[in-house]
């Protein structure tokens, strides 16, 4: 039996600020717990060393403004690089599954990155998935976001990709950051139904979450048949989390991972550093490695206090039924969208970066292609913390783009490359693994 790969990178020398939830101390007690348990010494576990992502790995997913270096620290390269390393170990068949216990996190980072949103600058899971698609040619991937906050960054990155299923359950956006993740966010016109959200009421317990897992998430996964299942593994549904208000336990997290059986789990949020994280991380490792976790629990855990409200179970059941129906009718809906829509689908967005206090304006055009998921043209403006006001133009060609979309998108890049309306014009061509940008004022093209 192959071992479970663990990559533990607590970034003990990185913090957003000294008292921020994303601080050096965050995984300290997790370190103490997993080292004291000696779980890394077991034959069922193989520990991996962190890796380093390259600017190109990041540009495959993001348009970093003005460039990759401006949006990241070395810690981000190690965190993302560590996800790549555990993914390589999985794809090379060294491990049966893998868990990257890494920080900084990433699931709030969207395609365009002007700064830090929800503690994230770059999206570790998306960088990992696009790396795997490029390197190993895999196509269909499912991401299950088990963080208490809606994984809005990952959702946005894959909103128009019918080959990536994104499912997120989270505390209802009307009661928690980032405020999104509602039932009607179901994917773009040509990727309808492969984005599924389940906004749960505050104080939902193990029973409620596991119900949604078994009745909604597992059936969808079975029908979608992904080549890879990724758990975007936040740990802040825990009853002791200081930033959220759910009632999930370490046992619940272990059970969830046992049933979900992700190929790769990547740590996201979770800020109850002493009461939850040491036990939840142990639970995840044990469940993924097939070790009996019945003797694991938090010292202050009292099961009687965590009973599910029957009315809440009914509410969850209603959502489950509706989302299951949406998922099963997705292909019909996509066909309809293809026929009725215009040549381009236009969307206008305002995005707020809470950590860096940046307001971004975005105008997106998605090519509604009859043959592929289409390319995207994104115009984005934002004033950065340093006072600079950036206007950028981004061309994004997905890995599954058809030949005519590729050539049309590439000519959009060429056409805009002299347009002084913009500070920067970017090309993200995943088909040809070609990532470049032009600094209009300096008239310099940078190729990654």
């Amino acid at each position, binding site marked *: 039996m192959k071992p479970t790969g663990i990559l533990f990178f607590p970034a003990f020398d990185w913090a957003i600020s000294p008292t921020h939830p994303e601080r050096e101390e965050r995984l300290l007690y997790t370190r103490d717990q997993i080292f004291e348990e000696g779980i890394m010494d077991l034959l069922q576990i193989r520990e991996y060393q962190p890796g*380093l992502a390259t600017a190109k790995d990041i540009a495959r997913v993001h348009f970093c403004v003005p460039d990759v270096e401006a949006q990241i620290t070395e810690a981000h390269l*190690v965190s993302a690089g560590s996800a790549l390393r555990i993914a390589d170990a999985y794809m090379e068949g060294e491990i049966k599954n893998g868990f990257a216990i890494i920080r900084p996190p990433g699931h709030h980072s969207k395609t365009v990155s002007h700064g830090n949103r929800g503690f994230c600058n770059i999206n570790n899971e998306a960088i990992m998935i696009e790396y795997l698609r490029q390197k190993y040619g895999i196509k269909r991937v499912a991401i299950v976001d088990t963080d208490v906050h809606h994984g809005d960054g990952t959702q946005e990155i894959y909103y128009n990709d019918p080959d990536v299923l994104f499912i997120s359950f989270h505390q209802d956006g009307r009661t928690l950051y980032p405020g999104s993740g509602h039932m009607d966010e179901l994917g773009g016109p040509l990727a309808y139904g492969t984005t599924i959200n389940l906004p749960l009421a505050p104080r939902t317990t193990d029973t409620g979450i596991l119900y949604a897992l078994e009745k909604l998430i597992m059936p969808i996964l079975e029908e979608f048949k992904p080549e890879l299942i990724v758990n975007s593994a936040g740990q802040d549904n825990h009853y002791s989390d200081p930033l959220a208000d759910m009632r999930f336990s370490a046992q619940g997290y272990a059970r969830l991972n046992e049933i979900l059986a992700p190929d790769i789990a990547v740590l996201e949020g979770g800020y109850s550093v002493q009461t939850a994280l040491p036990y939840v991380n*142990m639970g995840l490792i044990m469940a993924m490695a097939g070790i009996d976790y019945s003797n694991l629990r938090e*010292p202050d855990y009292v099961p009687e206090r965590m009973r599910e409200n029957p009315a809440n179970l009914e509410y969850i059941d209603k959502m489950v039924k509706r989302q299951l129906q949406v998922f099963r009718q997705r292909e019909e809906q996509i066909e309809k969208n293809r026929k009725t829509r215009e040549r381009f689908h236009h969307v206008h967005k305002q995005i707020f970066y809470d950590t860096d206090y940046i307001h971004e304006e975005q105008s997106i055009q998605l090519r509604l292609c009859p043959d592929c998921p289409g390319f995207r043209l994104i115009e984005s403006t934002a004033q950065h913390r340093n006072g600079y006001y950036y206007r950028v133009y981004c061309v994004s060609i997905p890995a599954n783009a058809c030949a005519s979309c590729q050539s049309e998108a590439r000519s959009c890049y060429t056409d805009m490359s002299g347009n002084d309306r913009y500070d920067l014009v970017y090309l993200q061509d995943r088909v040809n693994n070609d990532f470049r940008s032009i600094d209009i004022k300096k008239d310099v093209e940078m190729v990654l």
Partner: protein
Amino acid sequence: MLIGIDVGGTYTDGVVFDRGEVIATTKVPTDDNDIKSTVLQVLDKLLLKQDKSDITRIVLSTTVVTNLLATGKGERTALLLIPGYGLPADAYDISDDTFFLKGGIDFRGRELDPLDEKELIQIGDNIVAAGIKRAAIISKFGNRNDNLEKQASHYMAQHYPQLSVTTGSQISGKLNFPRRATTAYYTAITSKEWNRFVDEIDQALTERGLDCEVHILKADGGTLALDVSRDMPCETVFSGPAASTMGAMALAGEGMNSVVLDIGGTTTDIALLIEGEPLYASKGASINQRYTHINAFAVRSIALGGDSCITVNAGQVEVQAYRRDVAACFGGSSATVTDAFNYKFNLNIGNPELSAAALEQIGGSAMSTEEVGAAVVAIVTNRLQDVITSMFKEWENEPAYKVWEVINKRKFTLEQITGIGAASRAIIPELADAMQVKHFIHQYADVANALGAAVARPTLAVNLHVDTQTKIYTLDPGGVRGTLENPHNFQLKDAREMARKHLEQVGKERGMASYTNESSFFMEEQFNMIGGWDQTGKLFDVGIQVTPGFIEEFKGVKI
């Protein structure tokens, strides 16, 4: 005048070393059933031409504990574990006599659950009824708070006075409960036998009128006064490879990246020196496939040596793990690895014609002598090269937990192969050629192990953990736990000072006070603890050590 004695699996070597020169050497076959007599035999031979009053220091590297653990002949010991929540009970497969106690401690040293006295009575009765006279008690996070271990230990001592009890926190202060449990258990099962050995050596030295310092070599290449070793027998495991590595350091001198190959009759021990410093096993010494908290060099042993037998089956040349005899060139009965190298590179070892004849004989009609020789050389160099490369890789792939460690990751570039052991002269030059690095074999290479033991200095590592919120600190070795006097103003410099003082204190107790001023910090960590958005305290982890090195009077070896 210094004496070093290294007990090996096949032979025991001894040297007398004085002012840069080896003035006497000896070698006798090891009697595994009576190591004491083997040691004394070597000692007596070395003393033949020396004035006993000139001997200032004797260092022994023995296999007493290694053999005890390998053969499972240690004293029957009850292992009492207090695991609390976490891994299931079946994760702890250390002793057949394992008992689980209720109780729990967390990572901050907070007591979660108390012991259950009724359970203690029941277990104590069972242990005594089974005729067991020794017990080891280990609690998860007992290194952060040893209260439960102490309570259980006191209870047992009070109710069962015939029982000798060891606790985990006395043995090690490092995280990793299974390794602490294993180390405490191995310490307990070897304690009686080791103390008997120490008594016998002590007595024999007195009988011989020897009144010098006597030390035991540890797995980390440092020494321990014979008397101090009584409490920590397990520290003496794997001292053979440690002796070789120290010997290689003593002979090679310079601080470069090198690999040390100790090629004996049937085994080769391989160690890495990184910028001149020996590499430690990152998970501690592994004994019977279990990791421990014993600091040991990262030594790989493979079943391949100068006397390894060569066979040819259906045109297939094989190098066997076993030995039949000495090499044919020394009058042995069959072809060995040494013979193949001797023939292939015209090394003129012993009688080279006998090497050629032995190779020709096993080649028979199927293979020419040249072909057999070339095949053996290829097998040996490839195997050694593979192990060396995988050791580099392992070192490069050690986990890292800080950004700067990942960014500044070093690559291992091999600069030299240092050969020691009897068979190294035949094999090392060719291996170094194949790996395109220089090699070094000192004239004393054959006795480097005993020489390494003779000149090694004592080592000591101290670990301190401080929690300014609970106001508790713990110090290792010794399992010291106390309350901070100034928790509010406690800073990293205070932690450093506290660790340094403990090092000096323990150094004094162990008779190595003159070395504690050569200590260096190997770990300094501090974390702010935040509650809400405010700082509620600090956590410190500080480590300070006297690293492996040489005694003051050692100023190098004359070439």
